[in-house]
């Protein structure tokens, strides 16, 4: 209820009239009584206690109270203490004294009240500050509680999600794993992420994962890798391991949030699709190669048939008694003519396969190998093959046709992987690059497969050891390498398996 006008007025009157009057009255009365008491001990009227009263009144009652006290004091001093006593008149010689008293009292009242005001202001400010601090502390405590609560809720959420999740500090060491992750992984999840996951990652995927993770840490970029993860049931499943970095407002990397998404099903479906596609393109390729081979065979067969029949005829003409030399000579001409025709068929076929102008681009061979291996990663993973790269750092740029050399490498890698299927050996493919003499580089593809049965013949066209092979792969490799002025050869490895080497000239 708002205070009424009368209440406010009475408050104002108490504050500004009654209180100053009471304070001033009290102090002046005390000073007067004390002065009367000491009057007999001190000869001259004693004004100092009144000055004390003015000071006290101004201090406790404000400036108004101070001036009231001055007025009262002046009246009391004039009446009781300054001669002529008991009269308001002031003797000539005492006038200076009264005036000095009044001036001193005013000064004291002013100083005292000013002092009082400033002290009060300071006290008020301090109180205010204290209040503020109290308020802030309470607020902070409240928001802390809220934060804690929401953090707890978040963790409950994260633990309830049936998907492995984690977070890691900026440098990559784990600081949180959700319950699902802890439950699904048999080893302790702590320390650096890649070390923690090492025990559950498939050995083939582990290295790739580590490399990708380190690259992501360095680049502070989003990270995504598909890898097989060992589950609590002892089976590997394909997971998409994804992590995003969290940056502060000023761009500083704060931490990483990671999630493992089970993609086993999608992976299988995709793999099925890829296999179906491979099968399709393989059969399409074989078909068209077969058709082409048939038409080339027909083209060649016609003149050859003519040559053979003429040759038989020639022998007949010569074996007659007497020999028909004229016919034999004409027939021999025909043989020459038809053989030439067969030769021209061959050159036509060769022209068909020859590219227009050879492409030679200065190429970082290591880069080319790494790119290709990346492309083949899925295939290698599917066939449980680990690919090791031992690439020389000091390799010069090589002038080559990147597409053709990739084809050679692809062929050798695929051959290697084929050779390691069903051998029971651990499937490991090693690709090396190194300098070879002054002017050449050498690439080696080693497998741990069954080895070579006929190392001398493998580069011949149509020679194959595969059930559905055309026998063209290595023949094509050889023709590409030789068109680069290089050499390709194969050697058995002491530890079993085969090594294919090819050299390329640095300057074409």
């Amino acid at each position, binding site marked *: 209820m708002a205070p009424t006008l009368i209440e406010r007025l009475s408050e104002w009157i108490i504050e500004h009239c009654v209180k100053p009057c009471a304070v001033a009255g009290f102090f002046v009365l005390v000073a007067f009584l004390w002065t009367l008491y000491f009057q007999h001990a001190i000869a001259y009227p004693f004004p100092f206690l009144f000055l004390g009263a003015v000071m006290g009144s101004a201090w406790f009652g404000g400036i108004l109270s101070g001036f009231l006290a001055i007025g009262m004091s002046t009246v009391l001093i004039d009446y009781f203490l300054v001669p002529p006593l008991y009269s308001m008149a002031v003797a000539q010689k005492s006038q200076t004294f009264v005036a000095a008293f009044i001036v001193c009292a005013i000064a004291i009242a002013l100083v005292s009240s000013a002092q009082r005001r400033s002290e009060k202001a300071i006290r008020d400010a301090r109180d205010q500050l204290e209040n503020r601090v109290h308020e802030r502390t309470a607020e902070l405590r409240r928001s802390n509680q809220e934060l804690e609560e929401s953090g707890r809720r978040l963790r409950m959420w994260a633990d309830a999600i049936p998907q492995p999740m984690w977070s890691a500090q900026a440098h990559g060491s784990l600081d949180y794993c959700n319950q699902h992750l802890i439950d699904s992984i048999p080893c302790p999840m702590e320390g650096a992420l890649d070390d923690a996951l090492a025990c559950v990652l498939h050995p083939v995927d582990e290295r790739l994962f580590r490399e990708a993770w380190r690259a992501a840490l360095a680049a502070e970029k989003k990270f995504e890798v598909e890898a097989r993860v060992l589950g609590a049931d002892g089976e590997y499943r394909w997971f998409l391991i994804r992590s995003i970095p969290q940056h502060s407002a000023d761009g500083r990397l704060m931490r990483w949030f990671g999630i493992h998404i089970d993609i086993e099903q999608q992976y299988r479906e995709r793999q099925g699709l890829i296999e179906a596609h491979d099968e399709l393109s393989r059969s399409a390729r074989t078909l068209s190669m077969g058709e082409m081979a*048939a038409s080339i*065979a*027909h083209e060649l*067969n*016609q*003149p*050859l*048939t*003519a*040559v*053979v*029949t*003429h040759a*038989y*005829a*020639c022998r*007949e*003409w010569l074996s*007659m008694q007497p020999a*028909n030399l004229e*016919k034999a000579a004409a*027939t021999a001409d*025909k043989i020459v*003519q*038809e053989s030439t*025709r067969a030769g021209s068929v061959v050159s036509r076929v060769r022209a068909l396969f020859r590219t227009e102008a050879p492409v030679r681009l200065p190429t970082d061979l290591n880069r080319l190998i790494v790119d290709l291996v990346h492309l083949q990663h899925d295939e290698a993973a599917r066939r449980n093959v680990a690919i090791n790269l031992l690439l020389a750092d000091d390799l010069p740029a090589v002038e080559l046709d990147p597409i053709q050399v990739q084809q050679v490498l692809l062929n050798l890698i695929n051959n290697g992987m084929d050779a390691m299927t069903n051998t029971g050996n651990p499937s490991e493919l090693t690709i090396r690059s190194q300098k070879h003499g002054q002017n050449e580089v050498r690439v080696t593809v080693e497998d741990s497969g069954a080895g070579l049965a006929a190392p001398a013949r493998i580069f011949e066209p149509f020679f194959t050891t595969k059930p559905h092979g055309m026998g063209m792969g290595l023949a094509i490799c050889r023709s590409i390498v030789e068109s680069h002025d290089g050499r390709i050869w194969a050697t058995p490895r002491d530890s079993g398996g085969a090594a294919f080497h090819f050299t390329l000239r640095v300057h074409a």
Partner: protein
Amino acid sequence: MSPQPATAGSARQTVFIVDDDPAICEGLCNLLESVGLSAERFGSAEEFIAQWHDQPGCLMLDARLPGMTGVEFQEKLSQSGIRIPIIFMTAHGDVPMVRKVMKAGAVEFLTKPFEKEEMLAAIHHAFQIDGSYRSGQRQLDSLQSRLNMLTPREREVMELVTAGLLNKQIAAQLNLSEITVKLHRRHLLEKMQAESLADLVKMAEKIRTSRIE
């Protein structure tokens, strides 16, 4: 071993070569000429059919002619009433195709390039088939011309005689006297140049089977 014309006195047997590749035709002609065989060459199936006038011999046919497969040509020949043994030549004989043409009556299937002996053996075989077919055909032709000389009554008597009926039964069936039947029978044996009744029965059988064919 060179196949010689199988039947003396008739036209000389010829190898007809149908291949769209002139070089092959030329080579084959040269070889056949060198072993003393006569050969004629045609660049297409149409050319061969247009010029055909029922000469003895055999056909060497490329299995892949432009616009027509060998099997189709084989069918066309039999539709046109041309009977000639066919030797197929192919660069790549796939088994279903070989089976098909052999079933349709091809004599031999040669894969290019083929050996001389192989080819000559095939030609010899084809000539023999053609020769025996032609002599059979000739016999049938003369039988037919003799048959044409018979009067309608004699033909009736011949049918009944060869069916195994006695003179008496024939006379009864045709409403003739037994003597008249005997007379018809003598004339018909003379006209058909049959030495005995058994001979006549054989001739009748031949004519019947050729008609069924």
